[in-house]
């Protein structure tokens, strides 16, 4: 897992969910009371802007954890 991508997405989650996200913490949507559908698109758009990726509609629905977001950015950037 790319640690720079991980750190950037961790920072985004912390800013949008308005809570600190620890370095080894797993963040999963179903366990986050504040990760609602409005926050979800805020997270997606912040990741798109910060990491220069573009998601399609079907992907957006599946990006429901820190791990899934990191993996998706890595896949989008893969040669």
């Amino acid at each position, binding site marked *: 897992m790319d640690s720079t991508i991980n750190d950037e997405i961790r920072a985004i989650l912390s800013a949008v969910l308005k809570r600190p996200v620890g370095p080894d913490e797993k963040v999963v949507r179903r366990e986050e*009371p*504040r990760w*609602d*559908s*409005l*926050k979800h*698109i805020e997270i997606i*758009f912040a990741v798109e802007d910060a990491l220069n990726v573009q998601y399609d*509609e*079907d992907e957006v629905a599946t990006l429901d954890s820190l791990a899934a977001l990191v993996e998706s950015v890595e896949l989008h950037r893969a040669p």
Partner: protein
Amino acid sequence: MHHDIRVDGQAFALRPVELDDAAYIVGVRSDPEHTRWLHPVPSDVGLQEAWLEAYFRRPGDYYFVVERISTRAPEGLISIYDIDPVACHGTWGRWLLRRGSLAATESALLVYRVAFDVLGLESVSALSVLMNQPVVSFHESCGLPRYEVFPQYFHIRGVAYDAVEHRLTRLQWPEVEPLLAGKASRVARTLRRERRGEELRP
């Protein structure tokens, strides 16, 4: 009630529910994703049609299908009901979207536009099961304050649940609208980008 209110956003629209939507409504309301916080409904289209016939005669109740403008495909349901013409107040709810739908922000935006711009209400409430955290959080992410908590208000499958009311007034609306409109606009750009990609594919 029978109404002819249609409001278009950038990617999604609200159009009146019709009798032909009965099977769709049964399907959406039977989705296990949604049933936990809903009163049980008959899985029978005929009974749903009977409910709709009664709804068409009920004043102060505006039921909509949320549909995608580009395809006219339904994305979900939403309504404004219990309109108090004296207080100029209503409640919005019956809000269900298909799994993975990106219509949440724009459908909320449009239902507030119906409430304030079309129906001329002064305030509108959303009443949610307090434990239904994603919905409670959505209203608070939109900037709506908690107005009141009603203990043991909902009784669903024999279990009593507290309800929380979020309320938006006409005075507060100009602060909330840009937030929802901005997000809805970005979602619409995502969907347009995707459609262009499909059109370019051989």
